[in-house]
């Protein structure tokens, strides 16, 4: 890999940055955002929540440990484009099976290296998330800026439908042995293990793995499933997964969740958290530039303890107008936004962050255990 093929990133505010192409050639539009995780690029690439986005990594050296078949959160990279300061030429890790460049090329992901990524991050921080275009085809600045301005953005779009599975499936894989300090593999499930239906809006696989590892039988249903379809599986609990974009247009999901509430214990994660809140009558709004990283501190109001969390969201639940049935259980220590909710009367709770980690710290894995306990059995 020794490409000198130029690539350009243009933003709706007129900024154009020129770097070097890697991954696939082509042209993509998307909301340009940044992620501050220092490790876990393969998990980020395959996280369906990045659908519709061009992600810049703040960590400057990417690709060092290559790619492998284990560290994926879905079948393939899901984001629109990928930007790094420097792609590593060599891969060095005992688990590596390939090079990031070939991986992205194989999956048709347009990527760029060599730009001042910190300048890009500062621009996004100051101006908020920006629409952009990443191209190796068109290198004309004016034309690119026009394309960026004409691109759709995220608000009001149902991106979940694009990444959600079309059919139901069973999930049987536990978390990776590296995730547990003792390296123990999850035991065989007993026949009476609780059954969880995971509503998949673009679910990261580690959510399902975590459920399996705390002893749940998992059935994955498309996020478009109705309450009847869910209940037909006779679940002991329902998990609302993460997913891309704006939760507001997903009215089918609001309806399903509203109907399930009180019937089955519910645990929502990220988009699932926003959907639960919307189903209860709360409002969501778009953050200036979102939270994307693995170092976000969250205060658990119930215990007074702090969790360092992995996050990836551009929208949040509004505190203003929050229904009285919802109690704020977790808040973000950086900006005070809502990070966790609990229904006061029904067995339902949710968090804005990613307790399944992958990438990120394992501080919040206890939530899966709490959910497991809520299911009885």
């Amino acid at each position, binding site marked *: 890999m020794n490409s000198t093929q130029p690539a350009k990133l243009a933003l709706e505010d007129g900024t154009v940055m020129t770097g070097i192409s890697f991954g696939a050639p082509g042209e993509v539009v998307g909301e340009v955002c940044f992620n*501050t995780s220092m490790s876990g690029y393969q998990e980020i690439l395959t996280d369906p929540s990045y659908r519709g986005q061009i992600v810049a990594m703040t960590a400057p050296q990417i690709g060092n440990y290559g790619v492998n078949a284990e560290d994926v959160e879905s079948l393939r990279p899901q984001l629109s484009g990928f930007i790094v*300061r420097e792609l590593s030429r*060599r891969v060095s890790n005992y688990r590596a099976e390939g090079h990031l460049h070939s991986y992205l090329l194989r999956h048709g992901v347009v990527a760029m290296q060599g730009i001042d990524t910190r300048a890009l991050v500062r621009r996004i921080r100051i101006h908020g998330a920006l629409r952009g275009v990443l191209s190796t085809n068109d290198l004309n600045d004016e034309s690119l800026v026009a394309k960026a301005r004409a691109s759709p953005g995220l608000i009001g779009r149902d991106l979940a439908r694009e990444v959600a599975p079309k059919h139901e499936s069973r999930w049987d894989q536990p978390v990776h042995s590296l995730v547990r300090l003792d390296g123990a593999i999850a035991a065989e499930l007993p026949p009476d293990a609780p059954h969880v239906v995971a509503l998949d809006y673009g679910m990261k696989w580690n959510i399902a793995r975590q459920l399996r590892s705390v002893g749940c039988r998992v059935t994955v249903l498309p996020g478009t499933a109705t309450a009847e379809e869910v209940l037909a599986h006779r679940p002991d609990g329902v998990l609302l997964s993460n997913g891309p974009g704006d939760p507001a247009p997903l009215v089918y999901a609001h309806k399903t969740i509203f109907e399930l509430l009180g019937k089955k214990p519910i645990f929502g994660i990220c988009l699932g958290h926003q959907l639960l809140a919307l189903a209860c009558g709360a409002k969501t709004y778009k953050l200036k530039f979102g939270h994307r990283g693995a170092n976000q501190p969250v205060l658990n109001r119930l215990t007074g303890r*702090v969790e360092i969390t992995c996050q990836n969201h551009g929208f949040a639940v509004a505190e203003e107008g929050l229904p009285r049935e919802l109690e704020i259980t977790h808040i973000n220590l*950086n900006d005070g936004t809502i990070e966790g909710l609990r229904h006061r009367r029904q067995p339902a709770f949710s968090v804005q962050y990613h307790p399944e980690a992958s990438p990120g710290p*394992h501080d919040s894995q206890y939530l899966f255990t709490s959910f497991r306990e809520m299911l009885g059995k």
Partner: protein
Amino acid sequence: MPRRDDLHKILIIGSGPIIIGQACEFDYSGTQACKALREEGYQVVLVNSNPATIMTDPEMADRTYIEPLTCQMLEKVIAAERPDALLPTLGGQTGLNLAMELHHQGVLERYGVELIGARAEVIAKAEQRDLFKAAMEHIGLEVCRGQTVTCLEEARAAIKEIGLPCVVRPSFTLGGTGSSVAYNREEFDTLVAKGLDASPIGQVLLEESVLGWKEFEMEVMRDADDNCVIICSIENFDPMGVHTGDSVTVAPAQTLTDKEYQRMRDASIAVMREIGVDTGGSNIQFAIHPQTGRMVVIEMNPRVSRSSALASKATGFPIAKIAAKLAVGYRLHELPNDITRQTRACFEPTIDYVVVKVPRFTFEKFPEADPTLTTQMKSVGETMAIGRTFKEAIQKALRGLEVGSFGFGCDGKDLWGTLQQPTIEEVRAKLAVPNAERIWYLRYAIKYGMSIGEIYELTGIDPWFLENLHELVELEDHLRWQGRLQTVDDATLRWAKRCGFADRQLAVLLNSTEMEVREHRKRRGIVATFKAVDTCAAEFEAYTPYYYSTYEDEDETPPKSPAVRRVMILGGGPNRIGQGIEFDYCCCHASFALRELGIESVMVNSNPETVSTDYDTSDMLFFEPLTIEDVLNICDRVQPDGVIAQFGGQTPLNLARALSNAGVPIIGTSVDTIEAAEDREAFRDFLNRLGLRQPPSAVARNTAEARAAAAIIGFPLLVRPSYVLGGRAMEICYDMAQLERFVAEAFVAAGGQPVLIDRFLEDAIEVDVDAVCDGQHVLVAGIMEHIEAAGVHSGDSACAIPPYSLPPDVVEEIRQATVALARSLRVCGLMNVQFAVKQEGSQRVVYVLEVNPRASRTVPFVSKATGVPLAKIAAKAIVGVSLAEQGYTTDPVPVQTSVKESVFPFIKFPGIDIVLGPEMKSTGEVMGVAEDFPIAFAKSQIAAGTVLPREGRIFVSMNERSKMQFVPLARRLKAMGYELLATTGTARCLEAAGIEVRRVKKLQEGHPNLIDYMVNGEVQLVINTPSGKGARTDEGRIRAAAVARGVPCVTTLQAAEAAVGAMEALRRAALSVQALQDRHPQYARR
């Protein structure tokens, strides 16, 4: 929970003198802790024996004790101050050990002092190998498999569990000697048998070998609510087997997937909880098998460490400050992140650059020492560099090392393509065994076309790092192929700058000069940009002006305000012998002085251990190498109104001429004056005009000239090659044969370079003077009389303020000479003069040896001894505030005697000879203060770790010149009841004087000889004036054995005299302690 209200007064113990393994990082952490606790309204009592620290400035603590760090002295401080708590985790291993000793001796309980931060059980659990191992197994973490055995059968059974390769370590040998690695069964049997034999108790420890595994460190913080955060991960470039202090290290970790990183994070937090560190920071080291990923815990430090200082500088997160606040009850989320202001300290920093630390070694000072890098730390300093990529950061770090290289080769130090180019066999040999030069040999290996796989096999350095070095060599070759500066396209040049290539390297590659490259690239718009270190990868706005350079699009430094004067201070770079914390102290004071005057201070330095690189020391901090290029780049950007080059030691002075030529306004003493003082001819004429004397001297270009010069000047002579600095390779010659041998070697070593010859003033008393001049008026702040006679490097000699043996008229003559020198040189700022006073007939004649118009090593000592903040006064004088305006019109008169003693690293280099000479060897210093000289000297010895015995046996061995002079001292020792041991020559002389001596055999005479006595603990002090030096001589072996056995060893007659006086004084009076604030009452008012 907010701060604890039940505590009022907190004791902090510093780490004492700078030694290998414990350097300025503990001044940095201690200073932060003092500030943090006082900010919370606590009274802070500080004890440290090292005067060259910012923490011992009287403004830093409420009560400051510069006293020896021993349990007895600390008990006195505790009795006088009655603190409520002791915070033991900020003073390095010294502070921690002392806290444990105070605990074990019941002192803490007796005075009701609570250990905060880490309790005694916790410290024990972390520090004692067996307890630690059990704790790790309890939480399911692996440590290196190991077992102790006492016979071969046991060993053979154990190896089935442990596996090969296996480290065989004989128990209770000195300094861990005799430890080796067995790779097969046969070797194993042999090594075990040898080890059982070598161990005095017939026991060996068998331990699984993790040599060559990847090494990582995690910096963890925990608060009283059990909130844990990782501040920084560090990956060692050098694999397991090299002490982390001697490794090149990189932050953040570069080759871990998220799963592996998170597992290490989980393990770190589990260790923290299991060991039970209540609050504060700890460092945990891991080894990872490169092919299987198996992870073992190596060790934990339940305190702030060198790595935590590095982590603080690497991320911007002030670990020591936060640790201090957590210790008094705060929770992490109750504390603000100073850098972002709007967020909390409870988070994990994320960084968008790469940090590389490179250690600085000093083997050239100890040619007899084994230069192999092992688990025993040997480096004396370090430099850190920040770049956007590893390639950029390592090149910056290598030029920040200040060893004549400007990056990864292609510079003045490069042997490639020269006659000295190493052969491929030499390269292989240098790669296979870790050593200080290995980094350069990696490049030669790449140049020879060795594959990354092959280099990895030899070194165990991760292929990812090797790949990046390979890319640098490829780029170098590409540039070289272009041939000329004008033919290189802008994109390539920019790419080279982004990869960290210095203008100097480009000049070598493109047949140009540094300045031409600089001008060319600036014309082409290729200029350095400065980015902030902000803990958060720009996610939040940063308020702390802490910057590094890189070649990117956007610059983040704020524009200069026209209303404010801006002055830049150039720091001293990595610590080395001869240039260390003392100069950082001066730089910090310059910054404090500017702040007091409302002038914006800009600090430039590359040493992560220091207070000067704390982000709140100056108004702006540039963490950059101290080279012409890097400093000019900063000047281009910040446009300083003045640049101060006289505080950071030799490093900035070496830059002054070129900076000045490039139009940088160097303020204070002019560059011309600095150069004039260094030009031997010009300086001799200058002294003649002032009517001051200098020892006769000459320059010889060949042996004949040397002979002629010797005939005129007369023996003994002090000779040195002109091309080395700082006393390196300097020798005293007593006869023509010795002189001829020396010059012959010198001319072979560097043909054409002259040899400098000076008259050596034998037995002269050396005097150091520190003064400040504002251009007109002179403040002579300290006149220090050396204990050791001329011939011992002034940095190694002990000295006293005020002079203890010189008559007032000589002191006055020295004072006047100093004033005359400062005025005529038009010094503006600090000046140090070295004088020698020689008895010639009935007259004492004062000679000027050297004038250095800059900060000296003794400035902090003088400041502490006199209560006059010398460096601050000098900084103010430099920016135009006269001494009169500052209120300093009369020289200070010290009321007590202060003695500075030097501390040496000999214990780290087993077997080397310890004789003092013109070459400086000490790493640090301590200070002892008392009403009179003998007690002050005694305190300085205790502080330096030299235990002067109250009774027992003293071995004396005198050279011809000192035998007779020693007789009265021997008599005094006998009078105190010591038994004297001596070999034939000295014994005969003492017996002739009627002094009873017990004779011992010389080493070659068989047993029992002196070393046997030492091994058996039957000698308490060695007094030996050398007649020959070198590790191979009998004397050299005796001295080396004394160091290894911890027997104090005095090697000059003058020091022996002072020691005898101290031993007498210690019998008369008990030692007392006194706070600096009581010593210099002007501080108590503040």
